[in-house]
């Protein structure tokens, strides 16, 4: 019997939802476990770094890495897995585009550390103690990973072969992806393993969207009772669906919430936020600066709205300290 292909799972800066999603394969997982040899999966199985190091370079068929990259440890593990794997899949929005943790790129490291270790309401830290990468303790040196200056996507740290989008990816797509990768019939490098049309295509409310939408104000989901049948954009709620890759089966919309863009853009778009911004702004009703600004003022947080999952992977990547 030939050796089963080796598969590794790893998580970087992530919430654990991606791990959940693997389990969400439900009974299908048995098939997967049957077909592959899981050699590393910190959240579920007891393997150590040394175990990975022991595998020959390229000995793993595919590593599925989720989470954004924020610490030196995550970098190190990503690089290690890259070396050991024939294929690396960025699994989920965070590895793909930076994800929710990527919103931290609106602040610099010092702001974050100061807030977390000193200023947050629940913190008392009169000595201003901060985590150190190395601190002496009883003749030993205790080390901690370094907290990097910014959040990165996986492909900003190591070369990535494929992407599995979503926060988290849907089990159906994971199954399909694994089938494809195991089949050896590989798509071109860099492919996002999902459909390449926008989410609207599969949205049940698509037909309720009027053709002549002209926005005068936007509303956030909590400010309005969302009608369950009507296109959210038609209700003035910003839905990222038109600029977001489909494949999720319009889960959020089905749950009466707008799409927030976790699948990222289609292959034809570089910057998802810029594109949805363009589409939405184009359909404003106002024609003069003042009226336009009045309408746009109802979007309180453009960056958080349009780049909720994609700030580190966007063209600008992070907040910039321009001018002195």
């Amino acid at each position, binding site marked *: 019997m030939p050796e089963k292909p080796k598969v590794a799972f790893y998580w970087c800066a992530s919430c654990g939802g991606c791990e959940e999603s693997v389990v969400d394969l439900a009974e299908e997982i048995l098939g997967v476990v049957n077909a592959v040899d899981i050699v590393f999966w910190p959240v579920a199985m007891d393997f150590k770094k040394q175990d990975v190091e022991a595998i020959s370079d390229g000995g793993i068929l595919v590593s599925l890495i989720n989470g954004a990259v924020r610490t030196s440890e995550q970098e190190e593990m990503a*690089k290690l897995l890259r070396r050991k794997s024939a294929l690396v899949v960025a699994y989920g929005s965070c590895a793909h585009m930076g994800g929710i943790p990527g919103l931290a790129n609106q602040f610099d490291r010092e702001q974050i550390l100061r807030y977390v270790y000193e200023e947050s309401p629940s913190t008392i830290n009169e000595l201003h103690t901060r985590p150190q990468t190395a601190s002496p303790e009883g003749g030993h040196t205790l080390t901690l990973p370094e907290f*990097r200056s*910014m959040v990165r996507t996986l492909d900003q740290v190591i070369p990535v072969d494929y992407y599995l989008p979503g926060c988290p990816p849907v089990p159906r797509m994971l199954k399909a992806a694994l089938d494809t990768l195991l089949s050896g019939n590989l798509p071109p490098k860099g492919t996002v393993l999902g459909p390449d049309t926008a989410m609207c295509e599969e949205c049940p409310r698509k037909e309720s969207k009027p053709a002549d939408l002209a926005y005068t104000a936007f509303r956030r989901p909590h400010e309005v009772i969302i009608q369950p049948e009507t296109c959210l954009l038609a209700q003035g709620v910003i839905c990222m669906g038109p600029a977001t890759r489909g494949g999720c089966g319009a889960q959020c919309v089905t749950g009466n919430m707008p799409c927030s863009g976790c699948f990222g853009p289609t292959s034809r778009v570089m910057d998802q936020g*810029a594109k949805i911004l363009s589409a939405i702004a*184009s359909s404003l009703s106002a024609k003069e600066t003042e009226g336009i600004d009045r309408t746009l003022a109802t979007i309180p947080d453009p960056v958080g709205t*349009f780049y909720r999952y994609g700030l580190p992977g966007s063209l*600008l990547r992070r907040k*910039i300290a*321009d001018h002195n």
Partner: protein
Amino acid sequence: MASTGMKQGTNGWEPRIVAFFCNWCTYTAADLAGVSRLRHAPNARVIRVMCSGRLDPQFVLDAFARGADGVLVGGCHPGDCHYMEGNYKALRRVRLLQRMMKDMGIHEDRFRLEWISASEGEKVKTTINTMTERVRALGPLGLPERFAEWDEEMDGLAHAIAAQEEAVHA
């Protein structure tokens, strides 16, 4: 954010401005500026589009990401669009994009929309001149350099790993 790489570059640095001009008004005005020999700052590089409505916000962000210090968009005056309403769409996008970019820390003087009609060669000149001066006063934006500089923090680890591997292989 201290950007040492940038400071070195300030010597002899010249602002680089990418300009998107609509074919019918602003590009024609730029031609008129040429025909009238209205000399102006050589810092703008014009990309001709048929209408300011063709301006995809991605173009602006891409220009900055690739090293532009400023982006200028020129279109027909309100009501004068050759395609009736393209300039209004450009204006709306630009307003939202300007807000977004401000939140991302990019100074507002780096991204400007001007209405310049086909007869306003003089305005092409003054717009490019004032924009160049404003951007010059701000100094370089230098995103490619910043990207590289940010990523330097990963070099130490990469070197360490490389050294380790060398040791293993040796």
